[in-house]
C-alpha cells in the first residue's frame, strides 16, 4: 500500500506527519519546529538588544530581562540549533550513504516528538508563572534560589528533549555503521556524513551527564534532595561540572555538522574534490575526542587550582590545531577551483574569517590567567556568538539554501538569498564585533542595563543596530521561503549542476524509498565519478525488486505526550493535589505505549517492483 503521488486532504496530511517514520519527512518536521524556535529565540534576542540600546533603559524590567536572557540561550542551543542540525542530518545522511532509511525509523520519529514536546513544555513556562531566569547554564546557586516554577520547566523540558537527542544520536551511529551501500567504505563517506558520525558519538557520551545533572536539580527543587544545598552537605560545583561535561562537547555537537555542511559546499562550488579529505576526517575525530577533555575551561575562576587550570588550558589550546587543519583544507579546496558564488558559497566564504575570529578569542579565553579578566564579560559573549553564529548559524543558513531543493523540490530564490546573506553578515559583525571591546572595557554579561558616562553607549547602540540588520535578513529569508513555495519551479535531480554526492543522483525530493536500486559506490564523491564517465545515473548494486518499508506509527507521539503530561503533573505536585496523579497517569501513558510497541509485531510492508518502475518513470519526467 504505497502512498506515492496520491492527493490527500489536510487531515490526512497532518496524520501522515504525526505518524511518519520517513527520515525525509522527519527532517521537514525538525526544520519547521526548529525554525519556529529559532524565530522565538531571535525575538528574545531583539528584546535583549532593545533593552540594551541606551543606558538606564526601562523597556523591560530586570526580572523579565533575566527570563528573556535565559530563554534566548536555552531556546537557541537546545530548541533551534540542535533540531536544525538534526533536520540537515535526517534530510541528507541516509541518502548520502546510499541507504533507504535510517536504522531505526520508529526511534527517529520518537526522537523528534520527544524534542518537540520538551520544547513546548519549556516554553509553557511563559504562561504558567514565569520562565526560567538563571541563565542557560542554570548554575545551582542561582537556580535553587529562583522562586517561580521557571527552573522546573527548564529541568523537565530539557530532560524530555535531551532524551530525544540521545535517541537520535544512537540512531545515526547505527545507521552509518550498518546501512551504507556496497562500496561506501568509511573513507569514501562524504564529509557531512563523517561529521554526523562523530557528532552522534559525542551526543551519546555527552548527554547522559546532563541527564544526571537535571535529575539532581529536579530532586533538589521538587523532591527534597540535597545535592546542591551546602547547608545539608551538598555542593553547587557538582552541577557546574556535570553541566560543562555535557556543555562543552555540545559546542562541538553543533559545530562539527557545521564543518561538514561547509565541506560539502566548498567542494561543490569550487568544482574540486575536498582538499585533504583524510586529514579532514582525522581532524574531525580529533576535535570530537579533545572536546571531552576541556570542560573545566568554563570554570577557571571557580578555584580549582593552578594545576587543573593549566591542564585544561593546554588541552583547550590543542583544539586549535585540528581546527586550523580544517581551515587550511577549505582554503586549499577553493585554491585553483572554478568557484561559483552561489548563496551557500557566500556563507561558506564568509564563515572562514568569522569563525577564525571566534577561534582566536577562544585561545585568548583558554589562557587561564588572562581568563580572570575576560570571565563573565561581554568579551565572552562576543566570543561564543562568533563561533555559534559565525559557525553554526551560517552553516545552517547555507545548508538550508543548499539542500532546500532536495528537501522540497524547489530552489530558493538566489537574489533574495544573497540579500539575506548580506543583511545577516553585516548585521552579525555589527552586533558582535564591538562586544569584544565592550567586554574589555569592563561591561559584564547578563546585566539588564548600564549607566551613562562609562563609555558603553556607542558600542551598545551599534550592537543593537546590527541586531536589526540580522532580523531584516531573517524576514527576507521567510519571504523567500513563501515566494518559493508558491511560485517556485520544480527542479531536477541535480539543481546546482555540480552535485558530487549521492543525494544529487535521486529526484528532488527523493522518493520515499530513496533508491529504486541500491547504488554501487566506486569512490569518494560517488555521483561525480559517474558524471565524469558520462553516465546519467548511478551504477546499481542489485536488480530491481520489491522494497521493504517500515510502517508508520502514532506510538512515538503518544510516548512523548505521556512524558509531557507526566512532567506537567510532577511539576505542580507540591502546589496542587492533582499533581501526583496526573504525573502517574502521564508515566502510564508512556509505559503503556511502549508496552504496545513491544507486543504488536511490526514487520513493515513492501513496495512492489511494478509500483517502483511506475514511480521512477514519473520521477524522470517531473
Amino acid at each position, binding site marked *: 500500500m504505497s502512498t506515492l503521488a496520491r492527493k490527500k486532504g489536510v487531515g490526512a496530511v497532518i496524520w501522515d506527519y504525526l505518524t511518519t517514520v520517513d527520515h525525509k519527512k522527519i527532517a521537514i518536521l525538525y526544520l519547521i519546529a526548529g525554525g519556529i524556535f529559532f524565530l522565538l529565540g531571535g525575538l528574545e534576542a531583539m528584546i535583549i538588544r532593545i533593552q540594551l540600546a541606551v543606558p538606564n533603559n526601562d523597556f523591560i524590567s530586570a526580572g523579565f530581562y533575566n527570563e528573556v536572557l535565559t530563554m534566548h540561550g536555552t531556546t537557541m542551543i537546545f530548541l533551534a540549533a540542535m533540531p536544525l542540525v538534526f533536520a540537515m542530518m535526517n534530510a541528507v545522511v541516509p541518502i548520502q550513504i546510499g541507504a533507504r532509511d535510517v536504522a531505526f525509523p520508529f526511534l527517529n520519529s520518537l526522537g523528534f516528538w520527544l524534542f518537540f514536546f520538551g520544547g513546548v513544555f519549556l516554553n509553557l513556562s511563559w504562561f504558567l508563572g514565569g520562565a526560567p531566569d538563571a541563565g542557560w547554564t542554570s548554575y545551582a546557586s542561582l537556580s535553587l534560589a529562583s522562586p517561580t516554577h521557571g527552573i522546573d520547566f527548564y529541568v523537565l523540558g530539557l530532560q524530555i528533549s535531551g532524551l530525544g537527542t540521545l535517541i537520535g544520536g544512537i540512531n545515526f551511529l547505527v545507521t552509518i*555503521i*550498518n546501512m551504507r551501500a556496497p562500496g561506501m567504505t568509511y573513507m569514501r563517506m562524504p564529509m557531512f556524513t563523517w561529521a554526523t558520525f562523530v557528532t552522534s558519538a559525542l551526543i551519546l557520551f555527552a*548527554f*547522559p551527564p546532563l541527564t544526571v545533572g537535571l535529575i539532581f536539580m529536579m530532586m*533538589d527543587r521538587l523532591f527534597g534532595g540535597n545535592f546542591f544545598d551546602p547547608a545539608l552537605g*551538598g555542593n553547587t560545583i557538582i552541577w557546574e561540572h556535570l553541566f560543562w561535561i555535557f556543555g562543552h562537547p555540545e559546542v562541538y555537537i553543533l559545530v562539527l555538522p557545521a564543518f561538514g555542511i561547509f565541506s560539502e559546499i566548498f567542494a561543490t562550488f569550487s568544482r574540486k574534490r575536498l582538499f585533504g579529505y583524510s586529514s579532514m576526517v582525522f581532524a574531525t575525530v580529533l576535535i570530537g575526542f579533545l572536546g571531552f577533555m576541556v570542560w573545566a575551561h568554563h570554570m577557571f575562576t571557580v578555584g580549582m587550582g593552578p594545576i587543573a587550570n593549566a591542564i585544561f588550558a593546554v588541552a583547550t589550546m590543542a583544539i586549535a590545531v585540528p581546527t586550523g587543519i580544517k581551515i587550511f583544507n577549505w582554503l586549499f579546496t577553493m585554491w585553483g577551483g572554478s568557484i561559483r558564488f552561489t548563496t551557500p558559497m557566500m556563507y561558506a566564504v564568509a564563515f572562514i574569517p568569522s569563525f577564525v575570529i571566534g577561534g582566536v578569542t577562544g585561545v585568548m579565553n583558554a589562557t587561564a590567567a588572562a581568563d580572570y579578566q575576560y570571565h563573565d564579560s561581554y568579551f565572552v559573549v562576543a566570543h561564543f556568538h562568533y563561533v555559534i553564529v559565525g559557525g553554526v548559524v551560517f552553516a545552517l543558513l547555507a545548508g538550508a539554501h543548499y539542500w532546500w531543493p532536495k528537501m522540497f523540490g524547489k530552489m530558493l530564490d538566489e537574489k533574495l538569498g544573497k540579500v539575506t546573506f548580506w543583511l545577516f553578515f553585516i548585521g552579525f559583525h555589527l552586533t558582535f564585533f564591538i562586544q569584544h571591546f565592550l567586554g574589555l572595557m569592563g561591561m559584564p554579561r547578563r546585566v539588564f542595563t548600564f549607566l551613562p558616562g562609562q563609555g558603553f553607549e556607542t558600542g551598545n547602540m551599534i550592537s543593537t543596530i546590527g541586531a536589526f540588520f540580522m532580523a531584516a535578513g531573517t524576514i527576507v529569508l521567510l519571504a523567500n521561503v513563501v515566494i518559493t513555495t508558491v511560485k517556485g519551479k520544480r527542479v531536477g535531480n541535480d539543481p546546482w549542476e555540480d552535485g558530487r554526492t549521492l543525494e544529487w543522483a535521486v529526484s528532488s525530493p527523493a522518493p520515499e524509498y530513496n533508491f529504486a536500486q541500491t547504488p554501487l559506490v566506486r569512490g569518494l564523491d560517488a555521483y561525480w565519478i559517474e558524471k565524469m564517465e558520462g553516465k546519467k545515473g548511478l551504477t546499481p548494486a542489485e536488480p530491481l525488486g520489491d522494497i521493504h518499508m517500515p510502517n508508520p506509527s502514532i506510538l512515538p507521539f503518544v510516548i512523548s505526550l505521556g512524558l509531557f503530561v507526566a512532567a506537567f503533573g510532577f511539576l505542580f505536585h507540591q502546589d496542587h493535589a492533582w499533581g501526583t496523579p496526573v504525573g502517574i497517569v502521564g508515566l502510564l501513558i508512556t509505559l503503556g505505549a511502549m508496552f504496545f510497541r513491544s507486543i504488536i509485531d511490526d514487520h513493515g510492508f513492501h513496495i512492489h517492483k511494478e509500483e517502483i518502475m511506475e514511480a521512477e518513470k514519473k520521477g524522470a519526467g517531473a
Partner: protein
Amino acid sequence: MHVEEKLTAETFPAEPEKATLEGKNKFLGFWFFLGGETVLFASLFATYLALKDSVAGGPSAKELFQMPIVFLATMLLLTSSLTSVYAMHHMRNFDFKKMQLWLGITVLLGAGFLALEIYEFTEYVHEGFKFSTSAFSSAFYTLVGTHGGHVAFGLLWIITLMVRNAKRGLNLYNAPKFYVASLYWHFIDVVWVFIFTVVYLMGMVG
C-alpha cells in the same frame, strides 16, 4: 534471512540475534545505548563519591550498611546473570521451552533482589535515613535507586517478552529482542558489582 521465515532446529542460524538487518541494527544500537548508560552511572558514581561523607548530622554509611542482606542481594543478582546466560544458550539451540524456563528463574532471582532492596530501603527510612536527610542520603538513594529502577524495568521487559511469545516460540523477529533484554540484564549486574564495591564495601570499611 527474512524475519518471517519458519525455522527448525536445523535451519536456525548460529547467531539468530544478528541474522537479519533489523537484528544487527538492534544489537549494535543496544550496545551504544549501554555505552550511554555507562556514562550515566559514571556520573552518578562520581557524585556519590563526592558526597558520601556529607552526612549533615544524619546516619553515616558505617552506621547503616549491613553485610548479610547486601551479600544475599548480590548473590541473587549475580546468579540471575548466570541463569540468563543459560537462557541465551538455549535460545541459540532453538530450545524455546528451556529458554523460557531459565528466563523464568532469572526473573524470580531478580524479583528476590528487588524485594530485598525495598526491604533495605524501608529499614533505612525507619532508622531516620530519608531521601532528604543529607547530601549523602540523596546521593545514595539516587544511585542505588536508579539501579533498582533499572532492575524493575528489566523484569517488566523480560516478563512481557516471555508472555508475548509464549505460544509461538522462537523466530528471527523475537530472537534479537530476547538477546538485547539479556544484554540489559548483564549490564544491570555489572553496575551492581560496582555499587557493591564502591557503596557498600567502601562504606563499611573505608
